[in-house]
C-alpha cells in the first residue's frame, strides 16, 4: 500500500479524499486544511490524521504522494515543498498563477523524476479521449476551424463569493472554467500560440470575469473560437464541448456523446458516410469506485499506477498544464489591448 495525503479540503479536495481513500492500492493517512470545522469532521468520521499545516503533515508522515487541492495561489509553495521532500504530486487545475512559478514546479518535478499530474479530468472522459484518437488519425483531413465551449450556472446573481471570485487567488471564469476548455483544445487539437479579440466579461461578479470569449490561433495555424460563460443558468451543471470541422467532415464532442459526420465512409474505423454517434456508455473508462463521474476516479487510478510503476505520465503532466497557463496569459494580455 502506498501512503497519501490530501492538502486542501474544499469541493475538489474532499472529492479527491473520497476517491483516494477507497483505492485498493492506497492508504489515505493524512489530510490538511485551515478550516477547523472541516478538520473536526474528518477527525470525527474518518481514520485520516488531520493537520492544519501542510509542512507539518509532510514532515511527520512518510507519504508517497500528495494531492494539492487548494486555491491556485497556494499551489506553488505547497507543490514545491512536496517535490523537495521527494513526494509525487497531483495538483488541481489551474496549475499556477505565474509562469515563472509554473516553470519552476515543472522543472523541479522533472529533475527529481517525480510523477506529476494536474486535474484536467476531461481527458479521462471516454468521448473526449475518442475524439483525440480520431483526430490524431486524421479522420477529418485538413482542419478548417474549431469551437471550444463551456457553460454552467456558477455565478447567476450579483453577490460576493469565495476565493473563486478573487483574481489574486486564481478565481474567475478564465481560471476556473475556461482552463478546462483551453487544455482540451491544446491536447486534442493543438497548442494555442496567439489570442485575438479576447474579452473577459463581467456579468454579475465585481472582481472577476464571468465569461471569456477569444479567437485562438494554434501552432498549426488553425484558428477557432473559445466561448465560456459560468453565469449561464440554462445549464444545470458545467457542460463542456469541442467541435472541429475539417475538409472531410466534422466532429462535435461533449461529456456524453461524440457525433461524427463524414463526407465519405472511413474504413479504418468502420464509420459510414453521414452521421455516426458514439455514446459514453460504450466509451466510459471502467472504475472500481464512482463519485461524480468516472473521470475523477480514472485520473487518480492513472496517477497511482504511475506512482507505483515509476512510469512518467503522458496525460495531464505539469508541463501540459503549464502550456495551458501560458495560453491563459495570452488571453489576459490580449484582453487588455
Amino acid at each position, binding site marked *: 500500500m502506498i501512503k497519501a495525503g490530501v492538502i486542501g479540503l*474544499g*469541493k475538489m479536495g*474532499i*472529492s479527491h*479524499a*473520497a*476517491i483516494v*481513500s*477507497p483505492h485498493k492500492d492506497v492508504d489515505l493517512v493524512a489530510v490538511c486544511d485551515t*478550516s*477547523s*470545522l*472541516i478538520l*473536526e*469532521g*474528518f477527525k*470525527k*468520521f*474518518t*481514520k485520516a490524521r488531520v493537520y492544519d499545516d501542510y509542512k507539518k503533515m509532510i514532515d511527520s508522515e512518510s507519504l508517497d504522494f500528495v494531492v494539492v487541492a487548494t486555491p491556485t495561489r497556494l499551489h506553488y509553495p505547497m507543490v514545491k515543498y512536496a517535490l523537495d521532500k521527494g513526494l509525487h504530486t497531483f495538483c488541481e487545475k489551474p496549475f499556477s498563477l505565474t509562469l515563472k512559478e509554473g516553470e519552476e514546479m515543472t522543472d523541479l518535478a522533472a529533475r527529481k523524476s517525480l510523477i506529476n499530474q494536474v486535474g484536467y479530468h476531461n481527458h479521462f472522459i471516454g468521448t473526449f479521449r475518442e475524439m483525440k484518437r480520431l483526430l490524431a488519425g486524421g479522420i477529418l483531413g485538413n482542419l478548417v476551424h474549431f469551437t471550444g465551449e463551456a457553460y*454552467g*450556472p*456558477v*455565478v447567476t446573481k450579483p453577490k460576493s*463569493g*469565495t*476565493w*473563486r*471570485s478573487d483574481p489574486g487567488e486564481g478565481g474567475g471564469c478564465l481560471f*476556473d472554467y475556461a482552463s478546462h476548455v483551453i487544455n482540451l483544445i491544446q491536447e486534442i487539437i493543438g497548442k494555442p500560440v496567439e489570442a485575438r479579440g479576447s474579452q473577459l466579461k463581467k456579468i454579475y461578479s465585481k472582481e472577476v470575469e464571468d465569461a471569456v470569449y477569444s479567437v485562438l490561433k494554434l501552432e498549426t495555424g488553425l484558428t477557432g473560437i473559445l466561448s465560456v460563460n459560468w453565469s449561464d443558468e*440554462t445549464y*444545470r*451543471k458545467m*457542460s463542456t*464541448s469541442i467541435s472541429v470541422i475539417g475538409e472531410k467532415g466534422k466532429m462535435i464532442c*461533449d*461529456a*456524453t*456523446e461524440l457525433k461524427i459526420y463524414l463526407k465519405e465512409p472511413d474504413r479504418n474505423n468502420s464509420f459510414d458516410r453521414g452521421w455516426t454517434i458514439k*455514446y*459514453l*456508455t*460504450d466509451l*466510459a473508462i*471502467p*472504475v*472500481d*469506485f*464512482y*463519485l*461524480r463521474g468516472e473521470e475523477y476516479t480514472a485520473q487518480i487510478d492513472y496517477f497511482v499506477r504511475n506512482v507505483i510503476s515509476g512510469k512518467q505520465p503522458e496525460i495531464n503532466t505539469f508541463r501540459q498544464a503549464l502550456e495551458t497557463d501560458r495560453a491563459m496569459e495570452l488571453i489576459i494580455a490580449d484582453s487588455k489591448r
Partner: protein
Amino acid sequence: MDKVLFGDNQFFAVNHLSDEKSREQAVRFKEDSAIIRVLDQAIETGINTFMCTTHDRIANICDHMRANPEKYHDFQIFPGMPYAHKYANAVTELGIIGTIKQYVPGNIFGTFAKGGMAYLSKDFLKLMEILIDAEMKMFKGIKTPVIFIQNVVTDMILGMKAYDAFIAYDEYIRKKYNSEPGYITMNMPALLDALNSVGIKNPIICSSINKIGFRMSGGKEIYEKYLREKEFRPIAMQVLAAGALRPKEAIEYLGNFPRIESVLFGASSKAHIKETKELIEHYL
C-alpha cells in the same frame, strides 16, 4: 415497495446520454402543469410511487398534491435528497461554510446558540438533521414511506469510510419521519458491505443495474453476485443504461434477479410509461 417507481430525471433535464435531449426536456417541462400532466398519466396507468429529488420545483408539485387530496390519496413520494447540483454549484461559488450558511434555515448562529460555528463543529449530526428537515419541509402532509440519500452524498460518505454518518441517518429517518431509510449509490457492493459492517441489515439500496454494466462500479459480475447472494432490498435504476438498451431486453435482464424489489424509471409519454410498466410487471 411498489414494483414500479416513477422517476423525475426527465422533468429536470437530466439525460445521461445527451445534453441536447436535456435541453428539449427543459423546454417541454418548463411549466409545472406539464409535469403534473405526465404524473397524472402515470397514475392512470396504475403507478402510485413517485421517486424524486428535492429540486425546488418539486415543492410546487407537492402543493398541487396537497390541494387535491382525493385525487392523490393513494399516491406517495420517495424523496431523494439533496438535489446535489444545487449544493455543488453553491460550493463552487460560496465555499463549504458559505453553502452551509445559505442552506441552513435561519441564522446559523441562532440555530447553534452555544457559540455558533465552534459549537457546530462538534455537532455535525445536528447539522445533518437540520439539513434533512430543511429538505423534507416541502413534503409535509404527503406520504414518504422511504427517504433516500442521493448517490453523491452516499458515495462521498462511503469513500471517506465515514460510516457513522450512515448510522445517524438511518436512525434519524426512522425516528423523526417514521420512514424507511434508503440509499442511492453508484457503488452497490461496497455500500452494502459498509452498511452491514455497522449493523445496518437488509437496507434498501437503489443502484444502476443493467445488462451492459453501465455505472456499475467494480464491474457487472460483482453486482450480479450480490444480487444473487446477499440480503438487501435492491431497487434497479438506469436499467436502460441511459438509452443504450431497448426496454424489453433491459427489463428481461432484471428478471434474472428475483431479489430486485422495484425498478425506477422515468418517461415522458403515456405510451412509454405503460409499456415499461407492463414489462416490469411481466418480468419481475
